[in-house]
C-alpha cells in the first residue's frame, strides 16, 4: 500500500505550499483559472514566487507528471509544456495532428450550455464541445484501442471565449487532459495554460488522495512547484469516480455527432470550425469522421481498463486501488455501485424505447427482452437517467474479486426489477449491508445476502415468483437447477409486467404516466448532483 501511495503521491514539490504574488496577481490568476474550473483559491497571497533554473525545472517536472503519455513527453522536457490546444495536439500527435487518415478522433457534442467555468451554464445557442482521444493508428489490433483512451482531451466552448464574437467560441487554453497511468491504472488529470504563443505553458496536476481530498500541483515555467489543497472537487465534480465519462453512451448518442446526427450548419469559423468539422464532413469536404458510434466503444474499453487495471501492472486500476486504500471510500464505496448509483448514463428513444423505462435489464438478463417501438410523432424519453456503465463495471469487478457472487448480484437486481437506478428499496439495503463490513470476500457476499434475506422476511417483497427467485438465489443450499426453475417462473411473471408497462405507450394516459416517470428520474438526477459543477447533460 505504501508503495502505491508513493507512486500516487510522488509529487511533493520542494517549495510546497508556496504563497504567491500580490493581491493583484492573485486576482489575475483567479480570473484566468476561472476558465479551468473553480479556481485555485489556495494560491492567494504572499511573497513573489521564487524562480528556479532549468535543472530544477526538469527535476520538478519529473515529480509532477505520472507514468503516462503526458509524463513520457514532458518529464525530461520542461520547456516543452504546451499552453494551448494547437500546441498540445502537435506535441502529442493527436487531434488535427493525428496520423490516421480516416479519423482524427475528434468527437463533438453540442448542447445549449457551456462548461467553460467548470459549472454548467445554460446558454441560448448550441455550443460545441469536443472529446479528443489519443490517436490509435493500429486499428486492427483489438488491444490497440488503449492508444485512444490513454490520452483524452476535453475542449469546451464559451460565449465569452476570446474569438466568440467571430463565431469561434472554442476555448483553446486552458486544455484539460486525462492520461492513463501505466503503473496505477488510474487517470491522471492535468490542466495546461498558455503563457503566450510559443512560450512554455503552465501545467497543473489535480489529484485525489486516499482521504478524498483534492490536491493541486502547479508548475509555472521558471518557478518552483506549488502545491495546494482545494475544497472544491475540481475535475472530480464531474468525473465522480475519477474515470472517463460519456453521458450518452448508447445509440442514438443524443447531442453527439454520429451516424444519426450531422454537424449543424451553424456559422462557425477559425479553430472551432477547423476542429469540429473533423467530426463529420456531410458534404464530402474530406473523408474523415469521428462519430460517437466509435467513441462509445472506446469509452467502454477505457472504463473496463480503468476499473480492473492495466494488465502489465498487477494491483492497478480503480477497483484494486480502492480495495488497497490508495483510492478513497474502500470496499463500502465500491459496493455502493451495486446497491445505489455513483454515476449515471442517459438513454434516449430513437425508433425504439429504452428498456430502462420499464424495467431493469440486468434483473431480467437472459430474458431476451426487446425494446418496444417508439411513436415517431412523440419520441420519448430523451436523456432518461439509467444505470451507468461505470457502476456495472465496478460491480463486475466485485464479482471477479469474489465479493459478490453472480447469484447475489442477480438477487440485488431482482429486489427492485423496475428501477435500475434510484431504487429506494435496493439502495435502502446499502447501509445495513456495509455496516461492520467484513474483509473476507465470501463473508462480504454472505453479509449482502443476509441483508437481502432480512428484507424478504420483512415482507417488503410480495409473495410470488420474484420472492421465490430471490429466496433461492440467496440460499447457498439451493442448487443452480432449482434457481433456474425459479428464474423461469420469475421471467414469466416479469413478461406480464413488461407487457403491461409497454402497453402504456399505446394510450395518452399511459404516455402521461411514463413521462411522469421520466421526469421523476430527471429530478432525482438533479438531486443527486446539486452543485453547479456536475456531470449532467442539459435535462430540460
Amino acid at each position, binding site marked *: 500500500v505504501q508503495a502505491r501511495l508513493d507512486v500516487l503521491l510522488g509529487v511533493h514539490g520542494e517549495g510546497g505550499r508556496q504563497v504567491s504574488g500580490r493581491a493583484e496577481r492573485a486576482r489575475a490568476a483567479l480570473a484566468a483559472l476561472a476558465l479551468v474550473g473553480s479556481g485555485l483559491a489556495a494560491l492567494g497571497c504572499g511573497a513573489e514566487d521564487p524562480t528556479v533554473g532549468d535543472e530544477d525545472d526538469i527535476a520538478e517536472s519529473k515529480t509532477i507528471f505520472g507514468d503516462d503519455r503526458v509524463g513520457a513527453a514532458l518529464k525530461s522536457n520542461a520547456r516543452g509544456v504546451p499552453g494551448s490546444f494547437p500546441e498540445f495536439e502537435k506535441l502529442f500527435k493527436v487531434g488535427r495532428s493525428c496520423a490516421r487518415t480516416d479519423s482524427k478522433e475528434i468527437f463533438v457534442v453540442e448542447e445549449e450550455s457551456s462548461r467553460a467555468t467548470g459549472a454548467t451554464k445554460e446558454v441560448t445557442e448550441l455550443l460545441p464541445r469536443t472529446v479528443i482521444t489519443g490517436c490509435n493508428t493500429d486499428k486492427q489490433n*483489438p488491444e490497440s484501442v488503449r492508444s485512444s483512451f490513454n490520452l483524452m482531451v476535453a475542449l469546451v466552448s464559451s460565449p465569452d471565449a476570446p474569438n466568440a464574437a467571430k463565431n469561434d467560441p472554442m476555448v483553446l487554453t486552458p486544455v484539460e487532459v486525462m492520461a492513463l497511468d501505466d503503473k496505477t491504472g488510474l487517470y491522471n488529470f492535468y490542466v495546461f495554460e498558455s503563457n503566450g504563443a510559443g512560450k512554455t505553458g503552465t501545467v497543473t496536476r489535480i489529484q485525489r488522495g486516499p482521504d478524498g481530498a483534492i490536491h493541486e500541483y502547479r508548475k509555472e515555467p521558471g518557478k518552483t512547484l506549488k502545491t495546494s489543497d482545494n475544497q472544491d472537487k475540481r475535475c472530480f465534480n464531474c468525473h465522480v469516480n475519477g474515470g472517463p465519462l460519456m453521458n450518452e453512451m448508447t445509440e442514438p448518442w443524443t447531442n453527439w455527432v454520429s451516424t*444519426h446526427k*450531422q454537424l449543424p450548419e451553424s456559422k462557425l469559423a477559425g479553430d472551432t470550425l477547423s476542429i469540429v468539422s473533423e467530426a463529420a464532413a456531410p458534404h*464530402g469536404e474530406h473523408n474523415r469522421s469521428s*462519430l460517437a458510434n466509435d467513441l462509445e466503444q472506446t469509452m467502454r474499453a477505457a472504463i473496463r481498463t480503468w476499473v480492473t487495471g492495466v*494488465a502489465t501492472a498487477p494491483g492497478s486500476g480503480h477497483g484494486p486501488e480502492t480495495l488497497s486504500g490508495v483510492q478513497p471510500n474502500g470496499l463500502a464505496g465500491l459496493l455502493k455501485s451495486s446497491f445505489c448509483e455513483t454515476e449515471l448514463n442517459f438513454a434516449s428513444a*430513437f425508433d425504439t424505447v429504452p428498456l430502462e423505462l420499464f424495467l431493469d435489464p440486468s434483473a431480467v438478463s437472459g430474458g431476451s427482452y426487446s425494446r418496444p417501438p417508439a411513436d415517431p410523432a412523440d419520441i420519448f424519453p430523451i436523456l432518461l437517467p439509467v444505470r451507468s456503465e461505470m457502476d456495472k463495471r465496478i460491480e463486475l469487478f466485485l464479482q471477479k474479486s469474489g465479493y459478490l457472487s453472480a447469484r447475489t448480484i*442477480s438477487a440485488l437486481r431482482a429486489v427492485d426489477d423496475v428501477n435500475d437506478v434510484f431504487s429506494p428499496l435496493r439502495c435502502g439495503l446499502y447501509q445495513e449491508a456495509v455496516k461492520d463490513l467484513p474483509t473476507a470476500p465470501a463473508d462480504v457476499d454472505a453479509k449482502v445476502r443476509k441483508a437481502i434475506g432480512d428484507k424478504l422476511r420483512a415482507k417488503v417483497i410480495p409473495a410470488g415468483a420474484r420472492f421465490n427467485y430471490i429466496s433461492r438465489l440467496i440460499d447457498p443450499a439451493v442448487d443452480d437447477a432449482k434457481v433456474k426453475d425459479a428464474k423461469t417462473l420469475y421471467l414469466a411473471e416479469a413478461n406480464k409486467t413488461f407487457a403491461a408497462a409497454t402497453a402504456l405507450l*399505446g394510450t395518452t394516459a399511459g404516455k402521461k404516466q411514463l413521462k411522469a416517470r421520466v421526469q421523476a428520474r430527471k429530478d432525482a438526477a438533479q438531486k443527486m448532483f446539486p452543485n453547479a459543477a456536475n456531470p449532467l447533460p442539459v435535462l430540460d
Partner: protein
Amino acid sequence: LASFVLGAVETMARTNSSRSPLHLLAAAFLFAAPLAVGCGAEAPVTGDEDNIVPADAATLFDQAGVCDAILKRHATVRDTDLKDGSIRWNCGDVAGVTASDRGQEYCEYNAVSKGKLVTQIKDVAAGAPIQCLFTGVFKDTTGKVDALAKALADKANIGGTTDKRAVQMTKDFNSRGAATALVDDCAANASKAPINEARQVACYQASVAIPAKAAQLKKLCRGKDLTSETAWKKVVALGAKVLVAADAGFEAQRDIAGCAAAGRSGGVTWRNSDNMICGRVTRAAAECSCAYNDIPTAVDGFTFTGWTNDQLPTGCRYAKVAAADYKNLVICEISAGERDDLELNADYTGDLQSFCHDRFSTELVMKAPIRALEKAGTCKPGSTFCSAYTAKVAGK
C-alpha cells in the same frame, strides 16, 4: 410459368426469414404478392419462440415512420453515399430480430473459436480465443466456399479449420438472386407510385412536425386511402404538403417516399437493407430514368466497410485470401478484457452470436455499389438528386 415461378421464388426468398426452399417453392405456386402483412408498428414482434422478427408495417403511414428512422440513422453518410453511387447500411439486424433469424441484412455472423462455430461460452475451450466472423458471401455464390474455408485456416485469419456455415451465408434471402430481384422490382415499380403513397408520407411528416395535430393526422391517414381529394383536403388543412423541388425538405420527403415503396416492390419493410436499396433505386429509376443490370456472378457479395472512408471498425480486419484483403469476410477480434467478461455476462454466455451483434455489427457496414449496376447511359442528370446520384450535371 417457369419464369414466373422462379421470380416468385426469388421474391419469397428475400422476404421470408426462415422458410425452407421447398416451402418457398410451394408457397410460390400459391401466391407471389408482396408480404405487406403483419400486426403494425404497435406490435413489435411476432413469430414462434425460435424465430423472432419484427412485424411488417401494417400501413404506409407506419412504413413512412420506419423509413424516416432508417434514413435518420444514416443521415450523416447520405450525401457521401449519393456522390459515391453507393448505399450503406448496418450489418447488424434491427431490434426485434433474435435467435436463429439473425442475419437479415445480406450479412451473417457467428462466433468462432479456432474455426469451430461456437454458440455458448461453454463450447469454448478455457483460454481459447473467440472471434466474430462476418460473412457477406451470397448464398448462391458457387465454387468459393472451400477455398475460403482453407484460406481462413491460415494463422493470419482464423487459424483453424473453419465451419463452412460461418464462411458463406446460409439464408435463402441472402443471395445474389434475391438482391437482383429486389433491384429489378424496385426499378420496375418506381414509376407506379400511387398518389396515396406520397400523401401518406406527407401526412406522416406533418404528424411529426406538428405534435398538436399528430393524433388527428394519424386518424385521418393511417390505413386510409388518401387518393380521394376530399380526404386529402382535410389532411392538407392540418398542415400536410406533398413538396415540390423548390420546397425546403423536398429531398428528405422524396427519400422517405422512395423507401416506402419497398413494400409494394416486395421488400421486407423492416430490414435496413431492403429499405435502403429500394429507396435509392426507386428514386433513381423514377426521377433519373435509371435502369439496372443484374448483379454479376463475379460479385461474391456486398462488401464490408465502415462508416468512414471505407475503414473497418477497430478490432476488425478483412480475411486475407491469396495475400489480399477479401472484402466479403471480416474477422473481428475480441479483446482479452472482453473475453474475460463474457464468462460472467448472462446475456451472452449462452448466446455468443448476440455478443457479435451487439459488439461489432452496428459499426460494421454493408456497401452496395448501386451506380455500378446501371445499364450504361440510362441515368440522366437534371434534378438535384439525379445530378448528385449520377455525379454528372445536366447537359454535360
